[in-house]
């Protein structure tokens, strides 16, 4: 007696679900990276600037309206990639102009942290 085909149906489902997962991951990663392939470990080679300002009592500065919320990236390691964001307006955007757009020289953000003592 051979194995009835119904016995193999679950294996078919399991294997096709691997394909569904892979395709879903491919699509979502492309979507997150604006249609390009994913990028990783790309900024550990450089800290763009060694100078960071510690502003104590950051709440006082917020009244100027000059503090922006900045939540979606890990800034510890995104220096040059963050520069891409400042030049092109998107994290994966690229531009090969030799002169930066107007206002770029003053758009470098200081990272703030709240005082803890």
């Amino acid at each position: 007696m051979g194995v009835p085909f119904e016995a193999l149906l679950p294996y078919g489902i399991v294997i096709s679900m691997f394909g569904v997962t892979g395709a879903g991951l491919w699509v979502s990663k492309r979507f997150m990276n604006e249609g390009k392939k994913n990028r990783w470990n790309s900024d550990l080679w450089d800290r763009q600037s060694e100078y960071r300002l510690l502003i104590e009592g950051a709440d006082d500065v917020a009244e100027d309206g000059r503090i922006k919320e900045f939540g979606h990236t890990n800034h510890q390691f995104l220096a040059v990639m963050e520069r891409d964001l400042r030049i092109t307006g998107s994290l994966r955007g690229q531009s090969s102009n030799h002169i930066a757009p107007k206002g770029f020289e003053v758009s470098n953000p200081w990272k703030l942290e709240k005082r803890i003592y």
Partner: protein
Amino acid sequence: MAQRDARFNQQVLVDTTPMPDHIPKVDEIGATSAPLFSAAYFIGDRCKAFNDDYMKCKEEANGRGEFDCMKEGRKVTRCAASVIKDINTHCLQEFKAHWECLENNNHYLFECRKPEQSLNSCVFEKLGLKKSIPGAPENEVPVHLRPKQKYAQFPGRQF
């Protein structure tokens, strides 16, 4: 204290005050990471003297290099901008092909040897700048001229 990195920062401060007038202006470079990386060896070829000059100045400035070496720093910026401008003028197609390849391959040079070859030959013909890897062994073929790349996704000859 000012040199300590901010940790767990939730906010940034963008200070839009421009530089004071007594500091001469220089246009910042507008190329982003991939085009800059693609042009890096040509920038190094043309601007080696300026770059070395700036590093020497910084070394001798005892930690005040950012202030004392601004003249040399402006030369570095202008020289790099001139290289990128020239490549954009003369080799735009090849340049674009190479940096788009880099951008799509996690900035791995070894995945993009074919566009790199055409970019290198175009830049050498039009601008006379040659890619050479500093400190590479003299008696071996430099890695960017080997057709097979060890860690590339495609194992065969790339050009």
